[in-house]
Each structure stands twice: as structure tokens, then as C-alpha cells.
């Protein structure tokens, strides 16, 4: 039986990250620990970052839930370790753009994350893919502002009808 877009969604690289998540090891002394959880579906991610100046020097991601959220978290750990904060934010924004129907950016190598482009065709699953990234964005903002991160959710829409994940940065601006 052909499952059509399903084969696009569950590409082998995604399943591999799901089965063998990277960066699962908790950090011994994290600068920031942030929680993302989508209560209605049960996806949860705990994300830890260490900073060295404006560079992300270490990442710990413990994502529990469906294959889309766990693989996205694993790819995040792979990708952003060693990036500057600005680079990590740029990747998050680009990924968010893709999930909401945009094209892959020509000037940015998203590595394995590009495999999650197939989520575009499954609007109800965008919240799963984006959860670790929104959690990361909030962790970065919290770190910059010197406050504790707040639990993040990517379920539902905000008061202006936009998906929750779109306004995380603006929320604290």
C-alpha cells in the first residue's frame, strides 16, 4: 500500500533521529534550562544551553513524544551546538518559515532538518516540529534578559489568530 505523503513525512533520516536522538545527555551545569510542552498532545521537551560569549557551546535536548517532535529536537541538538546565538535564531526562523509553507533558504544549510520540510503538508503536526525550536528561542530570550524561561507551548493560536509559535519573540519584545 502506498502511503503517499506519509513516505515524505517519515523519511528515513527522521526515523533515525527518532530512534537515536542526539544530545540527549543532560548538561552538568547548564546556563539555562527551558521546558516546552504541548499539553493537549503530550509532547514534551527539556532543553538546556551553555553559552560561551555569544556562542552556544553546549546543548542538551530531551524530547519525549511523537517522531516529529523528538527528531526535530535531536536535529536541533546536532545543528546549533557551536553556532552563535544569532545563527541559531536565523535557523529557527528559517525552519519556522519552511513549516508554514515557505521554501528552503538558498543561503542556509539546515542539514538533516531539511528532511522535516514534509511536515508542511500536515498542518496539524507543525506544532510538534516547531516545539523544540520555540523552546530554544525562549531560552535564548530568557538568557539575554536574565530571567527564568517560561514554559512554552506551540498549541493553538494567539489572540490575533496566528499560530502560537509565530509570536514567541514578539511576546517579550
Amino acid at each position, binding site marked *: *500500500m502506498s*502511503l*503517499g*505523503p*506519509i*513516505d515524505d*513525512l*517519515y523519511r528515513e533520516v527522521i*526515523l533515525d533521529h527518532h*530512534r537515536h536522538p542526539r544530545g540527549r545527555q543532560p548538561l552538568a551545569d547548564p546556563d539555562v534550562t527551558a521546558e516546552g510542552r504541548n*499539553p*493537549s*498532545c*503530550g*509532547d*514534551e521537551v527539556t532543553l538546556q544551553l551553555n553559552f560561551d560569549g555569544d556562542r552556544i557551546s553546549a546543548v542538551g535536548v530531551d524530547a*519525549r*513524544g*511523537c*517522531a*516529529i517532535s523528538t527528531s526535530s529536537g535531536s536535529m536541533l541538538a546536532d545543528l546549533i551546538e557551536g553556532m552563535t546565538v544569532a545563527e541559531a535564531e536565523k535557523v529557527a526562523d528559517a525552519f519556522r518559515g519552511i513549516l508554514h509553507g515557505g521554501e528552503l533558504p538558498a543561503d542556509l544549510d539546515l542539514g538533516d532538518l531539511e528532511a522535516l520540510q514534509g511536515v508542511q503538508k*500536515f498542518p*496539524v*503536526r507543525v506544532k*510538534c516540529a516547531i516545539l523544540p525550536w520555540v523552546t530554544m528561542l525562549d531560552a535564548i530570550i530568557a538568557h539575554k534578559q536574565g530571567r527564568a524561561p517560561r514554559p512554552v507551548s506551540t498549541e493553538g493560536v494567539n489572540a490575533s489568530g496566528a499560530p502560537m509559535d509565530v509570536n514567541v519573540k514578539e511576546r517579550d519584545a
Partner: protein
Amino acid sequence: MRSRHAAAERAAAGGLLRERFPILGRSVNGRPLVYLDSAATTQKPEAVIAAEAAYYRTSNANVHRGLHTLGDEATRLYEGCRSAVAGWLAVAPAQVSIQRSATAAINLVARGWDHHLKDGDAILVTEMEHHANFVPWQMLAARRKLELRVLPVTDGGELDLARLDDLLDGRVKIVAIGHVSNVLGTVNPVAEICGRARDVGALTLVDAAQSVGHRPLAFADTGADLLVFSAHKCYGPMGLGFLVGRPEVLAELEPLEGGGEMIEWVRLEGTTWAEVPHRFEAGTPNVAAAAAFPAAIALLEELGLADVRAHEQELTGYALEKLAALDGLVIFGPGDPARRGGLVSFHDPQVHPHDLSTILDQLGIAVRAGHHCAQPLHRRLGVVATTRASFGVYTARDEIDALVAGILEARKVFAP
């Protein structure tokens, strides 16, 4: 009984009155729709859809106010719904209050019993409640400094009645229990529990959202003081629920909302309330939904609720058997279909419920994945989410076969 069984088996093969449900003719992702989410909301028969439209086309007016013909027709349709529900559950119309939903009805009770409560009193609920029958009581407990007690669930997915003696003492003033669990399917012995609650002087409320319209049921069978349900879970329209109660209990319940319709006299100095049940019905109600619901009741009466129940039980037995044959699949709730409603929740260690639900959706199969508004229960079960297949009169056996084939397909995607 044998012939009922044979009839149920024939019905299970093809589903009952499928042709009356227009939505079942559509396809999803290029496949015929297999709708296995009836516990979230049932599909609507043509008669209900037509009755709701007919109300707006021919009789739309506000109720209990206009002295003109349309106002009179709308009022008759609205009150006709009350009478139909009353007849169905074998109570008097004055014992039926028309609400927005089962949830609204529970909240009404949770806000309207204050004058019978004092500091240190207790409320007893169960660990398998839908949030609708849990959160309002938690809110009441916090607001009035009451103790919220929770009757636990056994490993077999039934209420741990052995704990009832310790939990149900004279301090308990309200007992709120679900009749049929929307996750485990468990049919709870509500009459027994309500009887014991009455012995200690507690008010009893039964959440019958998953049982009304799915089995023969008279209000008196539950032994409860109050019963709530939603029309949309038994083939009726959305935006309509009911509070059914014993007259002497309804008379003691304070209205939650003030406004039009619920008053007798309004003076600057104060207001007197309308009679029960109108005092619980402030504002313009969903008359169209009320006008349509009797068509759902008529369809269920045409089938006969004993046959509806037999059909759901037959399908549940079939689903339990087929799902149990899937290696490693964990099924929650009692093993005996006679002790459950028409649904099965399970957990597949190989495929997360979301991933399963997405894959099934590609095959046109609608199931529910998540915590089904019962987080405390899922914590007890030790999983964050389950997948639930639930059945209606129209469900056919081959739809369960399609589900099983879909699970195998999903396992293939996730096979190492």
C-alpha cells in the same frame, strides 16, 4: 437473547442506518472516510441536519417572548425538546434544564450548591473523570476551601470500590462520577455508588455524556440526584446539553447566570427567579439545536436502545479481539465488552499516538490521539497519550479491520 445476538452480529457487519448519515459518504485523503471518533462527537443523521435548517428557514424567532406566530412556534419547538428528553429519560419536563453542554451543566451545579457547603467539607470524584467532571470540582474546592477526594482506578481499569468506605464519610457533601469512561470505556456502578453517597447525605451527580443514547437508560436507573449529558454525543447537534435532576434537588440549586428568561419579577430592589428549570436558562438559548435534537432521539428510538447497545458491544468485542492479536499492543480498560461502552483506547509501544493518527488519517481513518481530556487518568495509566477508536450506530465491522490494517501499515513505517 440469541436472536438479538444474531441481529447484532449482522448489524455489526454493515453498520446501522449508515445511509442516513450524509457525511459518511465523503472521502478523506482519497479514501472513504472511516470515522472512529464517535466518543468525541457522533456524526449527525440527515433528519437532525434538516430539522436544524428547517427551524431557521421557517420558525426562527426568540423563545418565550414574542406574542407572534413565529415566537410561538419557536417556543413550542424549544419546549418540545425538553419534553422529548424528559420522555426519553422517564422524568417530568420540569426536571430537564436545557444547557449549552454537559460541561456547562456541571459548572452550573458546581457554582450553585454553595449554600449547602461549609469549610472542611469534601467532594468525591474519581480518577477516571473527564476534565469536565473534574476541573469544576477542583475549582469549587479551591474557592470554598473544601477537600477534593479522588476514588482511584484499579490496574484493570475499574473504580477501586474497596476504597469507597474510607473515602465516603459524613464530610463528603458532593459525589460526582462518570457513568461510562471516555477513555477506558468502563461502565461504572453508578447506582450503587449514588446509593452509598445518599446514605451519608451527599449530593450525587452522574456524568452520562458517554451513556445517554448508547444504552437503554432512565434517569432513575442511575440513582443520581443530578445527571448531565450533551446532545452532540448522541447524534444530536452541537451547542446543546442537559441537566436532569430530582425536583427537590433542582429547587435547591442556585442559578449561575442572571439575565433574561430566568426571572419572574425584576425590581430595582431585587429580583425573583422564574420557576425551575427556567431559572437555569438565562439568555437566548440555542433554539435551533433544541429544535433538531428530537430527530436524533427519534432515530435512536426507531433502532431501539437495546439494539444500539448490542451493536456497540458487538463492535467493541470485535475490536478488542482484533487489537489484542497485535503483538505488543497495550489495551486499557476491562477485557469484557459487556462491561464497557463502545470504545477502545490503546497504546502501541512501536508508534506514538500522533504518528499513528497521522498515518491513519492518510488512510481516511479518524481516531483520537491524546489524553482525551483525562490527564489524571493517563498519569495513572503511565502514558501521556493513547489512541482511541470509538464507535457509533453506523460503525461497521470492516472499519475495525481497516483500523487494524492501518496500525500494521504504521508499524511498517516505524519498523527498525
